[in-house]
């Protein structure tokens, strides 16, 4: 939030949400310092979380992009991967820990390298709602039965959503073309 001071047109525009958030916090501070303290504290902790996670995630995705050939991605999660591809995607989703936004760079890279839309959506869904640490936490607070039933339903939903998204995506061309995922040099 520090580098929001720049007055260069495009930079300012890019950071307008940050600027607004800073202003909102100042207003909040004026009316309710307690609330502002909560806001700034939360912002700090979420920022720290992002800082801990995003740089290595982007680097690892960049490495996979460099080292894993298209054919391998195609074979495991591509159009001919079938049920195996779906199972791999669901397991990959539940096994990779961390917030959902950490899964976007990987999803973008997989799509770019020829992964099937249904598998990428299933991966994201499983990552969001059926991660292993999530299930552990959930069992603790809501009971193991609750967690197991919800996770099983989530897997079914992930498969169904993947199928629907794949039918829909046939009509798109945008899907991964405007991604920020690593692009091979020139």
């Amino acid at each position, binding site marked *: 939030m520090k580098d929001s001071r720049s007055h260069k047109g495009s930079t300012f525009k890019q950071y307008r*949400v940050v600027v607004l*958030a800073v202003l909102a916090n100042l207003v*909040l501070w004026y009316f309710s310092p307690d609330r502002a303290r909560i806001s700034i504290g939360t912002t700090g902790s979420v920022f720290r979380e992002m800082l801990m*996670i995003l740089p290595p995630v982007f680097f690892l995705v960049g490495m996979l992009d460099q080292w894993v050939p298209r054919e391998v991605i195609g074979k495991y999660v591509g159009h001919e991967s079938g049920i195996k591809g779906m199972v791999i995607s669901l397991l990959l989703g539940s096994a990779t820990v961390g917030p959902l936004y950490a899964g976007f760079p990987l999803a973008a890279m997989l799509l770019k390298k020829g992964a099937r839309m249904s598998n990428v959506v299933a991966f994201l869904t499983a990552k969001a709602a059926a991660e292993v640490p999530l299930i552990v936490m*959930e069992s603790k607070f809501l009971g193991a*039965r609750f967690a197991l039933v919800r996770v099983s339903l989530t897997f079914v939903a992930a498969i169904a*959503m993947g199928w629907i998204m794949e039918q829909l995506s046939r009509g*798109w061309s945008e899907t991964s073309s405007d991604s920020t995922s690593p692009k091979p040099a020139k």
Partner: protein
Amino acid sequence: MYSLILYLLAIVSAAVSFRADQEKTRQAFRVSVRSLVKVAPTMLGIVGVVGLLLALVPPHWISTYLGEKAGFVGTIAAAVIGAVTLIPGLVAFPLAGSIYAQGASTMTVAAFITTLTMVGFVTAPTEIEQLGKKMTIWRNSLSFVFALVIAVLMEVILP
């Protein structure tokens, strides 16, 4: 802990990769830095909005509100609140537990958790940057609908 593993993994793979092919490693590094710089404004914006949201809508309000609201209205409210908020996992489950304890139905708690995790209203800008607008809108809308379906099924299976 998790981030320690990530950083270790990144460092070890960088070292191994560097020995095998310097150019590929440099390229991976350059590309990842560029991607990070590109998502930074959106990410920082998200961070600011999350802080404000949690300050203006304290978690205990959510649990009191959803605990009192009964029936399908409560479930829809839970799904909407779950979709628009981004609550860190460490807060989310104790919160879901207290919503349950305050009398909300299985359906409501399931809807809340499912949209909370699957639908990312606040993170949509970065999802759009990385996966495209159509994919983001559809993924989030479908997640919302499926969250309600999951919630209803949960109520049937675990009344």
